[in-house]
């Protein structure tokens, strides 16, 4: 079996260098605008920074993938088209797209450019994936986080392109690219603006004995004195639905697949994706080093316990939809 490819987040040029140095096979990033799904202040790359990042990565045998994975705005898609043109001119190793219109445009205007289908495209079945492969020449799909390992194994027998799966980091319980919860509450969405539960709409209210975290004025969670106050990502809050309040959609957990790498290899997965372009250089370095070790061990048929202390959201981990019990 082929060794799993390790695809790592680069929110900044410093994180890119940290990931490459720690053993990433590929790094992914976006431009500093609405064309990518981590459009956060202080993150992302200019054209010049991407060019430098490409040189740095290529000199060390690593690949660079550019994410242009939001949906282009009607009547005003210049930024998205410019991003695709830059990807082609700068010769990134792959361009990650979600929008059908952009996929069609990229295929027409940059026939030599390798295309990956973003998780934001929500292609969760063989028919949808094969459609994107046939019509746009997509060569890899980043699978939505809605499939079990058994589903993925079956899927890989029914498609001819590579699959990349999320391996570690923040986890959406919703099908990505199909969620407008954030814009319902804040007016800003992953699909249109590249943000979810944006910091501009967050506030923390000291209530004396407790601390409330709010999004768009709605209380998303409340923490007692001994509790660590988490960021109010809408779907990771505490709510009640005719019963006791709790984490109705998802606990504030991190995805961690390090214990099931041999199963993912056996399911025919090509690449593992580490989430976290918004994370620090130190975080990237530690997660990438640990996964490098785990992947190398898995290639020898071994499992290793990883040192992920302090890295997981809410200090809890899950294998998410990869195990049926999550659903």
């Amino acid at each position, binding site marked *: 079996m082929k060794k799993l490819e390790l695809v790592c987040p680069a929110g900044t040029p410093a994180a890119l260098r940290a990931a490459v140095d720690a053993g990433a096979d590929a790094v992914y990033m976006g431009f500093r605008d609405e064309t990518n799904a981590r459009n956060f202040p202080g993150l992302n790359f200019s054209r010049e920074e991407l060019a430098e990042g490409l040189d740095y990565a290529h000199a060390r045998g690593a690949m660079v993938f550019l994410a242009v994975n939001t949906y282009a705005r*009607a009547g005003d898609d210049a930024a998205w088209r410019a991003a695709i043109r830059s990807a082609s001119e700068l010769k990134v190793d792959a361009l990650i797209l979600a929008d059908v*219109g952009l996929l*069609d445009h990229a295929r027409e205007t940059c026939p030599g450019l390798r295309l990956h289908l973003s998780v934001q*495209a929500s292609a969760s079945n063989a028919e949808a994936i094969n459609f994107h492969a046939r019509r746009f020449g997509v060569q890899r799909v980043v699978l939505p986080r809605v499939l079990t390992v058994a589903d993925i194994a079956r899927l890989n027998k029914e498609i001819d392109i590579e699959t990349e799966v999320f391996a570690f980091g923040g986890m959406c319980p919703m099908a990505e690219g*199909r969620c407008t919860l954030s*814009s319902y509450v804040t007016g800003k*969405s992953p699909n249109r603006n590249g943000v979810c539960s944006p910091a501009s709409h967050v506030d923390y209210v000291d209530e004396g004995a407790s601390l409330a975290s709010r999004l768009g004025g709605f209380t998303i969670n409340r923490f007692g004195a001994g509790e660590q106050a988490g960021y109010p990502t809408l*779907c990771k809050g505490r709510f009640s639905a005719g019963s006791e309040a709790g984490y109705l*959609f998802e606990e504030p957990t991190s995805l961690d697949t390090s214990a099931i790498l041999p199963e993912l290899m056996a399911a025919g997965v090509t690449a593992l994706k580490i989430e976290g372009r918004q994370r620090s250089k130190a975080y990237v370095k530690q997660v990438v080093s640990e996964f490098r070790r785990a992947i190398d061990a898995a290639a020898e048929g071994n499992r290793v316990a990883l040192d992920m202390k302090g890295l997981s959201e809410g200090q809890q981990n899950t294998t998410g939809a990869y195990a049926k019990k999550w*659903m």
Partner: protein
Amino acid sequence: MDVTKPDLSLGALLFNWPAAEVRDFYFRIADEADVDVVYFGEAVCAKRRPFIAPYFEEIITRLQAGGKRVILSSLQLVMDRKDMAAVADMVAMADDFLVEANDMAACSLLGGRTFAIGPSVNVYNEATLRFFEKEGAVRVSLNAELPEASLRALAAAATAHLEVQVFGRIPLAISARCFHARAHRLAKSGCQYVCEQDRDGLTVDTLDGQPFLAINGLQTLSHRYLNLLGEMPKLQEIGIRGFRLSPHTADMVQVADLYRGRLDGRIGGQEANARLAALVPAAAFANGFFHDVAGLAEISA
């Protein structure tokens, strides 16, 4: 299809009502509701399909006899063989009916014939619209989060009949996880179909007791009801031709009458809003997405 003439449609019932109630609901729609188009089919959870399947033919026949154009809605999230079989069943009827694709799997299977596209397939810009029109899409129901400027640009470019939702809770998210089962501390595989208990969805409250969202099995909806009665003249002016009502336990025949009156210019915006509030007294309303602010906002049009 005449893309220049506006029409009023009833979207697919999103909730899990007992099968006999579903049948009675559609029979009444067939006989009494002044709508041009009725979407029919399970879009949320494939596990619900076996219950309604025995009534399928009767419902469709009755709707057609009532002069309604029937469009078959397919599943939104297609993950496994059971889901794919549900989509394939709908596509198998594409020679006789327009089928609404709600996932790229259905777009793939329907490409090359005429078909409809539902709001869970992302058509956010002209290039995407053009691609699907070339594939055969003749009717495109747009995602509710699109603001006026996007609707305007899309309508200016469209050859297909563009539709927007104007009434009912807004579908906001779909998941592999069943939140109804989870709220009842059940596994999805042993869900006991608890979503049947909540005919308009189960209200999700914040820790402050503020109603916030509504869950419907795998789906999460707005708690507020979308109401674009005030915006309908503007929508028509910019070239939106389809006006979609999402079914609720409210009297949908009267809701349809009200929207028809508004579409025909017989009822003013203010009066229409007052009448809708009386028809759905428990509902709070929202129209923020159209105005490019938070979707839950209620802006005076």
